[in-house]
């Protein structure tokens, strides 16, 4: 793909070459339904495909959490409705332990990978990268389409695995061997685990195709004047998200391939001296811990893959709605670089209690806690961004503010867990659940929601309903804190995660009432999310129409395209960029912002 960033002369040729009709609207050469909506190479359509797939997965993943929260909250009760959904896995309305663990596993897998990776960065990288850097499409639109369809295939396989006789994978989303390697160890380690592995390998293929595309697009296809230092922070964060994925996902695949070998070819990469199902296996010399290293080498960067897009979008949205530049643009970029590089050298903090060398553990403590510094810089910069602003509480702004609040709450507890001495006790307790759900679960979701509400007008030419948006915001924010705040206490009390029933335990049964309370809040929050989904889909068709090109009065390039941009994004030439993306100041004509496309006034200093 040639570099279309040098616009002007390339423009006409470009339209001929690959898109033909895109930017001329729908009058002539109406695209076929299949190429327009299904096998589309338009980055905006692919973004929508990712988003809608993500939403469907999110509903499934969240529904699973409702199922297992019913068990956790009310271990002695039965729910006949569960049998309707789950059949023999919930005979008489009581979840079996096997399926409880399958639900927990699938909840994690679905939300981390399919929703918060594919659904989040897949949506917004696709939508925003070309639009905000001034490109007509990705570097390779075809590869981009392939990336979605690999994800789709991977989704299908994962979905199918839910219905096999022995159930889906049930070894936790981390699928540690030997549990995940041996059929004898767990029902879910049968065919369900094979499908899980197959699905995840295809998923990684999809992520690599996507990530390489994002990186090359950002590096090569910026419009005239769009220097790296003039890119919106969304683009910076999506760029580093892609870098993280491209460098760490292959390691995950290597881990999976060895696991497949151990499962089917009799190798002993992860297996050693195991007696199970009444017989001693012949595997000797492998290390179960090796898998954990390979897994967490992706697993940790993965949490930043989930976090960074939210950070970028929150930065953008906070600035736009504060009518004030983001504070410390350069510091924000540098802290992103810091987070990205550190993300690769902290993985073993998930393994402090595996019996690892204490010296090595010490190094990982040091590196892990270093990440708190760039994170702190970002928080203080966000706070300073809204300080003395002129805050408009649009729905996306509310979610961006909620993002900051949740990021603080969830981030601070990382300081506990990253410090190995404290991690010894807190490891694998509810404290961990509280920590990562707040910081990379809910707060990443808040970034995603902010992004959806903010760019919905760009995606569909309509607004989402505000009233429902505000309800969605307050219930979700309050719900998140009600669910996860008390879990810190359960963690202090040592309550282990991934338990099916606590009633036999002297130390943990005392939290039964609390667990019931949490489960009730989960149900309320779940239905509120469905309300959001409802709002999303109905607004596509019935939402208030967008009437101006730049409804949020933002400075970035996507708001210079037509309200419903065709393939190719801009009807004429791609605009040229003259200034940084955060010039929220008086333009001399009564506006409080100056778009990136406005040339500097004589004597005006570039930021």
């Amino acid at each position, binding site marked *: 793909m040639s570099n279309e960033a040098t616009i002007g002369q390339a423009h006409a040729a470009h339209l001929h070459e690959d898109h033909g009709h895109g930017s001329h609207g729908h009058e002539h050469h109406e695209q076929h339904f299949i190429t327009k909506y299904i096998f589309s190479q338009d980055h905006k359509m692919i973004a929508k495909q990712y988003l809608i797939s993500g939403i469907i997965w999110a509903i499934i993943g969240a529904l699973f959490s409702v199922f297992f929260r019913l068990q956790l909250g009310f271990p002695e009760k039965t729910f006949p409705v569960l049998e309707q959904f789950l059949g023999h896995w919930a005979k008489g309305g009581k979840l079996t332990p096997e399926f409880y663990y399958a639900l927990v596993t699938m909840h994690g897998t679905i939300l981390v990978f399919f929703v918060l990776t594919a659904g989040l960065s897949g949506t917004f990288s696709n939508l925003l990268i070309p639009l905000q850097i001034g490109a007509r499409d990705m570097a390779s639109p075809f590869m981009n389409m392939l990336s979605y369809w690999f994800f789709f295939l991977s989704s299908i396989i994962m979905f199918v695995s839910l219905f096999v006789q022995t159930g889906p994978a049930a070894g936790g989303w981390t699928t540690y061997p030997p549990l995940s390697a041996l059929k004898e160890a767990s029902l879910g380690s049968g065919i369900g685990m094979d499908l899980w592995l197959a699905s995840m390998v295809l998923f990684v293929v999809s992520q690599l195709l996507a990530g390489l595309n994002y990186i090359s697009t950002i590096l090569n296809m910026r419009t005239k004047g769009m220097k790296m230092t003039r890119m919106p922070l969304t683009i910076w964060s999506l760029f580093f998200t892609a870098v993280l994925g491209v460098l760490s996902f292959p390691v995950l695949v290597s881990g999976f391939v060895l696991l497949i070998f151990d499962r089917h070819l009799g190798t002993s990469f992860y297996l050693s001296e195991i007696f199970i199902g009444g017989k001693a296996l012949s595997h000797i010399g492998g290390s179960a811990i090796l898998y954990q290293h390979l897994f967490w080498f992706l697993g940790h960067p993965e949490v930043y893959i989930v976090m960074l897009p939210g950070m970028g979008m929150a930065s953008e949205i906070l600035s736009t709605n504060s009518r004030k530049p983001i504070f410390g643009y350069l510091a924000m970029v540098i802290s992103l670089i810091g987070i990205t590089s550190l993300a690769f050298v902290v993985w073993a903090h998930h393994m402090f209690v595996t019996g690892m060398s204490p010296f090595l553990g010490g190094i990982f403590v040091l590196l892990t806690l270093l990440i708190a510094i760039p994170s702190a810089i970002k928080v203080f910069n966000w706070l300073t961004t*809204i300080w003395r602003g002129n805050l408009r509480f649009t729905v996306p702004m509310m979610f961006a503010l909620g993002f900051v609040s949740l990021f603080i709450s969830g981030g601070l507890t990382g300081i506990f867990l990253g410090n190995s001495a404290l991690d010894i006790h807190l490891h694998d307790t509810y404290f961990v659940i509280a920590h990562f759900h707040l910081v990379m679960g809910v707060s990443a979701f808040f970034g995603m929601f902010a992004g959806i509400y903010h760019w919905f007008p760009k995606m569909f030419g309509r607004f989402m309903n505000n009233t429902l948006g505000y309800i969605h915001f307050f219930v979700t924010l309050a719900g998140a804190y009600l669910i996860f705040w008390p879990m810190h206490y359960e963690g202090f009390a040592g309550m282990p995660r991934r338990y099916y029933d606590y009633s036999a335990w002297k130390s943990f049964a005392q939290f039964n009432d609390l667990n019931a309370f949490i489960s009730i809040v989960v149900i309320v929050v779940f239905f509120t999310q469905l309300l959001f989904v409802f709002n999303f889909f109905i607004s596509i068709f019935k939402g208030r129409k967008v009437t101006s090109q730049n409804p949020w009065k933002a400075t970035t390039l996507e708001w210079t395209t037509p309200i419903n941009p065709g393939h190719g994004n801009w009807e004429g030439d791609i605009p040229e960029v003259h200034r940084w993306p955060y010039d929220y100041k008086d333009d001399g004509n009564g506006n409080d912002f100056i778009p990136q496309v406005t040339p500097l006034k004589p004597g005006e200093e570039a930021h």
Partner: protein
Amino acid sequence: MSGLIITALVFLVFIVIYQIAKASEYATVLRGEEKVKAQTNRLMAWLMVAFFILGLYGIYKCHIDLIDKMLPVSASNHGVKYDEMLKVTLILTGIVFFITQTLLFWFVFRYQSTEKRTSFFFPHNNKLELLWTVVPALALVALVVVGLRNWFTFTSDAPKGAQIVEVVGKQFNWIVRYPGPDGILGKTDYTKTDDATNVLGIDWSDPASKDDIVVQNGELHIVKNKDVQLVIRSRDVIHDVGLPHFRLKMDAVPGIVTTMWFRPLYTTKEMQNMTHDPEFVYEISCDQMCGKGHYSMRGTVIVETPEEHAEWLAKQQPYYASAQAPAAGSEAPATTTPVDSTKSNTADTAAKSTAALAAADIKK
């Protein structure tokens, strides 16, 4: 069927809510969009303040309700240091939490959009940015120093003379082994494992194995004020010996031997008195997902006085005698001394126990 009805019902309710919400947006247009926008903005600012105040109350209420359910005073020497460190970290992060959240919600209220307000163009300030790079860095250095000092203490080698006890995880219970009078755990070979006669795969050719005591009811008996080193193994998948009351935890990994040591500070009875709970018991929880019975993999720790411990130990029979000998044939089980035919072929009776091997391994 009921699933369908519920779905339909939820859908209907959503439509109703949506229609109401939609109507309110039409009303917005009628009443003048700008005016309504200003009102909404004010309302949201107030709601955020309300959320913040309710949130603070919620934090307080949560604390009051749950503080009684927290763990009692630490039952191990490491745990005492742990609790101090936890307190310091809690206070430090708590301060940061309250300052940043207060600023966030205060700014939201204070700088809400009004007709008169214009924002302050403030793109960067090096001094400020340096300030909030350096201050968190210093705070973290303090936490790292405390943390690493504790970490190296907790993971240090067990003091000389520590009692050695082996804890082995299997799906889904704990097996405990004591070395017997010779103080050495006999060697093991996993291929010799047998659920009926040799649950730990003990290699009976090792003379040190003959007096080993195996406890299969999930009880771990240890002595107050006596250092104990747990030698941890797994028979099948990864488990984790979780000792919440002692603030300790260590994985049990098949094929690898891990260890941890500590000194119990209070006997179970003392703890029952201190917590005013006659049913108090130290529990061992499996803290690494190990399959469908993970949640039921419960053990107990019984901390005793030296006298009680000796008395309990005296009542236990060596595993070789109770499980192996009867299976082997007609010998009188109770009187078999653990030295017979196997003596000759194990010349290396220096018999480095699994524990010693493991310790050497880990150090390397």
